[in-house]
C-alpha cells in the first residue's frame, strides 16, 4: 500500500490568485495523478504526472491553468492558477503501484473554496 498526504487540507482563496497543492507519498512511485471532484460529483482526471517528463493533461485541462511539478518519485505539486469560483472543488492526488492492476491509492484531498 501507499500513504499519501496533501497540503493544505483546505483553503479559501480570492479570485485571481493561485494556490499550490502539495502531494507527498511514503514510497517511490512512477506515476502520480491529479483529480478534481466538484461538490456532489464524481472524480475527473486532470493530468498524469511522471517524474522526469512533462505532465499529460486530459481534455479540458491545460498546463497554463494547472501547472504540475514532479521533481522526484515521492512528490508532486498542482497549482490552480488565476482562480475563479468555478475552481472551487476538492483536488486529490493518487498513485498506483507497479504490481496491482488499476489499484490506486488516494490522498485525503484539498478542499478549495474560491470567493
Amino acid at each position, binding site marked *: 500500500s501507499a500513504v*499519501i498526504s496533501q497540503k493544505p487540507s483546505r483553503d479559501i482563496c480570492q479570485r485571481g490568485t493561485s494556490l499550490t497543492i502539495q502531494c507527498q507519498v511514503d514510497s517511490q512511485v512512477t506515476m502520480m*495523478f491529479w*483529480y478534481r471532484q466538484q461538490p456532489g460529483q*464524481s*472524480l*475527473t*482526471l486532470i493530468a*498524469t504526472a511522471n517524474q522526469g517528463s512533462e505532465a499529460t493533461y486530459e481534455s479540458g485541462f491545460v498546463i497554463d491553468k494547472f501547472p504540475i511539478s514532479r521533481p522526484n518519485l515521492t512528490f508532486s505539486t498542482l497549482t490552480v492558477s488565476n482562480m475563479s469560483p468555478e475552481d472551487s472543488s476538492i483536488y*486529490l492526488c*493518487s498513485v*498506483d503501484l507497479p504490481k*496491482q*492492476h*488499476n*489499484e*490506486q*491509492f*488516494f*490522498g*485525503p*484531498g484539498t*478542499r478549495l473554496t474560491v470567493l
Partner: protein
Amino acid sequence: LAKTTQPISMDSYEGQEVNITCSHNNIATNDYITWYQQFPSQGPRFIIQGYKTKVTNEVASLFIPADRKSSTLSLPRVSLSDTAVYYCLVGNRDDKIIFGKGTRLHILP
C-alpha cells in the same frame, strides 16, 4: 475504456446484505473489474478487484458471470458506516482510471 452503468443511489438497512450491480457490456478481454468506496470528505479507497467468477476479501465479494458483461459487488451485513459512494471501474493495467458517477449507498438504522 469500457463504459460502466450502475444505479445512481440505493438505500438499505443495517444488517442487510447489499448488492450493487454494474453493467459493462463492452468489456475487453484484458480488462479487470475494480470497485472503489468513497466516504464523505475522503479520497476513494480500493475495495476489490476481479477478472472472472467470484472474488472475496474481508470487505466484500465480487461476482462476475461468465460473459463478464456485468458484475455485482456484495456487502454482507452492512452497518451505518458503509454509507458511501461505490464506484465500478473497468480497464486494464495500461488504462488511466476514469471514474463514472458511482452509486450512492445510504444505510438506514
